[in-house]
């Protein structure tokens, strides 16, 4: 019996492929498995091939394994593209209505078992074409020997909002698949072992957790412009914020979005926007304004494959440079990179706190895989949620004076108190021009450096954090560091090694946790930065800020997908 199963379900985009996969993940989750799901899709709405990888396992994974136990093909493209991803003695399922199109040699060499399934036949017989996804699910769960009652419960929940009738119709199709008289099905060795009966929680995507994190951290406003792969954050908040006195505005463009949240945050509301690369390019001016006026904002960049429009549905980690260096002139910003699924939640909470504590933009740097992948979530720790609004001046402490409020007062930690419009005696001016402590623009007799230094130095404490989370420290000679979704693949690679390797995740990207990083670079002979881009962006940043070129090494991939675990293992083997 297997402790894990990974299925790729592929078919024509828009044909419910995604749903089949997600239902299957939900089934596995209710059985007590940890699940992970990854979409392969394109920028077309209907037609073309799309696929979902559904992975269930006794242990938490956070990324797919390299090969498939089962490929379920609902179109011919799926056979053509994905059969070769099957493991030795893997299983190819396909809709019997299709012609079988496979590389016979591969099938033979790999001892692939092939089973045609009467999917179209059963759908036609028992229901409507739109129920193909449920029918596929039925067959898939049957092949993997899953208790039909459990599958039914998932279908019931999925359709209950649509009424009893729809539920019944779908159940009928499901049963059609489950009870199909089917002799060739015996002997299938993909039975998996239900580890526990405990439901492992809802199956959601990273973007949902960012949304939830925002709600829980007191964010009450979002302005955004839709873009793949970040829109789900807007969807989540559009649905939930109104219940908590909040609001979402879909703006005319990203320029409006970032400036609108500068306005709302200035007025006292924790605010967020979310976008992807192209929108980030447009938000550079706004980031600079927020930093210059010391207005806290939270900006999510869900990276996709660039440059330009690039490949909107493909994965890459190539926006790091613009996030770290972008925007004209010099201004402070904080960048956090959620490395795990749960991080999407906790880092968002932290982002709002850091934004208000340091009064500057905080960027949550996610990526396509971190944000769009499905996982089940068992638990989030309510007690880890704190809300720290930083230095605020209370209205009652404001004295009526002849002078306006010193919004940019020099202080030891370079951070000044904020007030919000509506507070008596807090009147002051805010400008993107270089200004003095009262906020007014400087004139020819002034020294222009004071506030520049204040802004740039206020983040210094963050250089001393433990922004790198070490997962294994066994005093080895080599350290592997990943960030964002790359980390999970790294983790799996290490776990699959017969030797131990030290590894960790860089979670605070800016300011780099310089003190910790320097220590690590001192300690290890080699530090490998694992990233999904062409120019080794994070490694180069570390080289720039800290040095140790001779110890730094890279593992890079930029093919629009996650690393193969094997690629990372190869690299590890090469080095230890």
């Amino acid at each position: 019996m297997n402790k894990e199963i990974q299925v790729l379900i592929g078919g024509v985009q828009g044909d419910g492929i995604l749903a089949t996969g997600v239902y299957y993940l939900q089934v596995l989750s209710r059985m007590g498995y940890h699940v992970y799901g990854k979409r392969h899709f394109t920028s077309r709405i209907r037609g073309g091939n799309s696929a979902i990888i559904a992975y269930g396992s006794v242990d938490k994974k956070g990324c797919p394994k390299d090969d498939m136990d089962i490929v379920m093909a609902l179109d011919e493209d799926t056979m053509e593209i994905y059969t070769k991803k099957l493991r030795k003695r893997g299983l190819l399922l396909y809709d019997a209505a299709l012609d079988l199109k496979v590389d016979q040699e591969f099938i033979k060499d790999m001892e692939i078992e092939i089973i045609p399934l009467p999917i179209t036949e059963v759908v036609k017989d028992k229901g409507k074409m739109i129920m193909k996804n449920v029918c596929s699910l039925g067959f898939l769960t049957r092949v993997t020997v899953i208790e039909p009652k459990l599958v039914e419960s998932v279908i019931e929940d999925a359709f209950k909002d649509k009424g009893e009738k729809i539920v019944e119709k779908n159940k009928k199709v499901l049963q059609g698949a489950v009870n199909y008289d089917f002799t060739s099905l015996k002997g299938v060795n993909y039975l998996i072992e239900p580890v526990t009966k405990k439901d492992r929680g809802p199956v959601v995507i990273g973007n949902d957790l960012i949304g939830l994190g925002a709600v829980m951290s007191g964010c009450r406003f979002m302005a955004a412009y839709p873009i793949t792969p970040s829109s789900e954050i807007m969807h989540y908040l559009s649905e939930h914020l109104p219940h908590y006195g909040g609001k979402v505005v879909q703006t005319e463009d990203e320029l409006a979005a970032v400036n609108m949240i500068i306005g709302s945050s200035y007025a006292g509301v924790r605010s967020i926007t979310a976008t992807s690369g192209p929108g980030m390019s447009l938000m550079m001016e706004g980031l600079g304004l927020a930093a210059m006026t010391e207005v806290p904002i939270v900006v999510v960049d869900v990276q996709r494959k660039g440059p330009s429009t690039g490949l909107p549905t493909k994965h890459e980690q190539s926006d790091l440079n613009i996030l770290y260096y972008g925007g004209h002139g010099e201004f402070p910003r904080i960048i956090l990179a959620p490395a795990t699924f749960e991080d999407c939640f906790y880092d968002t909470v932290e982002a709002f706190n850091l934004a208000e504590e340091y009064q500057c933009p905080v960027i949550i740097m996610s990526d396509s895989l971190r944000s769009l992948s499905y996982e089940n979530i068992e638990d989030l720790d309510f007690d880890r949620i704190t809300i720290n609004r930083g230095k605020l001046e209370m209205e009652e402490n404001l004295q009526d004076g002849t002078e306006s409020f010193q919004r940019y007062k020099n202080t030891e930690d370079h951070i000044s108190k904020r007030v919000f419009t509506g507070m008596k005696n807090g009147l002051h001016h805010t400008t993107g021009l270089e200004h003095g402590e009262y906020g007014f623009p400087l004139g020819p007799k002034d020294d222009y450096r004071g506030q520049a230094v204040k802004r740039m130095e206020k983040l210094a404490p963050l250089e001393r954090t433990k922004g790198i989370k070490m997962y294994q420290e066994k005093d080895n000679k080599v350290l592997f560091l990943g960030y964002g979704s790359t980390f999970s693949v790294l983790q799996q690679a290490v776990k699959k090694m017969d030797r131990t390797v030290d590894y960790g995740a860089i979670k605070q990207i800016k300011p780099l946790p310089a003190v910790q990083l320097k220590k690590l670079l001192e300690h290890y002979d080699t530090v490998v930065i694992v990233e999904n881009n062409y120019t080794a962006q994070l490694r180069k940043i570390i080289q720039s800020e800290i040095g140790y070129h001779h110890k730094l090494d890279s593992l890079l991939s930029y093919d629009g997908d996650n690393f193969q675990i094997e690629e990372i293992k190869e690299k590890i083997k090469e080095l230890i």
Partner: protein
Amino acid sequence: MAKYQEYSNGVEPTWCKGCGDFSVLRSLQVAAADLKIPQEDLMVVSGIGCSSRISGYMDSYTFHGVHGRALPIAQGIKLANKDLTVIAAGGDGDGFAIGAGHFIHSTKRNLDITYIVMNNQIYGLTKGHASPVSEQGFKTPSTPQGSEDLPLQPGLLSLSAGATFLAQGFSGYQEELIEIIKKGIEHKGFSFINIFSPCITFNKTNTYQWYRKNLASISQEGDYDPENYQQAMAKLLETKGLVTGILYENKRIEKREETALTKAPLALGKAEFQKLFQALY
């Protein structure tokens, strides 16, 4: 009664002596005083340009943003706190060139904001470049052969974008201007006020004198009905936009719900958290 001086922060404007914007600043201060808007509830947001410096002279909360983005910022503030009186202000370049998209969409969005454009038909701050409302043939260092195309008609544009309040004023007619600004602020919804405010340094065509000669005023017309959209359109066409007064006010339109996001509690309890967690299923 509040005095307009209370709304002045005493900073000496950087404007050239005689610039039309002085009159706009004063009118805004008088309007605020007449309407007794508490200083702390008054929010003036501006972009970048000579005119946009206006926010730096008001004794209230003031935000001088970046070029062309006054309206998004102002909308963010209004959404955050409906109890504020939010004024957005800027120049014709700020509003109709780089900010044109936001102008159209703010109008459509119809939040309760008053948008004041100090229209001098030129870019003052960059020392006299053509603006989208400069006349055809207007010569500037960037258009030495004369501006090629016809000027935009801000009034028409705003009506087409669904304006619920449109007025035009002139720096030279301060009394009317004060009235217009007051009405604009009182209007529940987005009020756009296009003010001819001469740049005495760079615009040698559209001078005080020129405006005095060319501006019609509807305030004098007895039968003008500001609630008549088509009449407003026609008036603008007839006068080529050279008209002052309250051209259009739609009092019937259903206003969108106002928000006081600043009032929403930040922290949610454990029960609420669990509810949200359950909703993930």
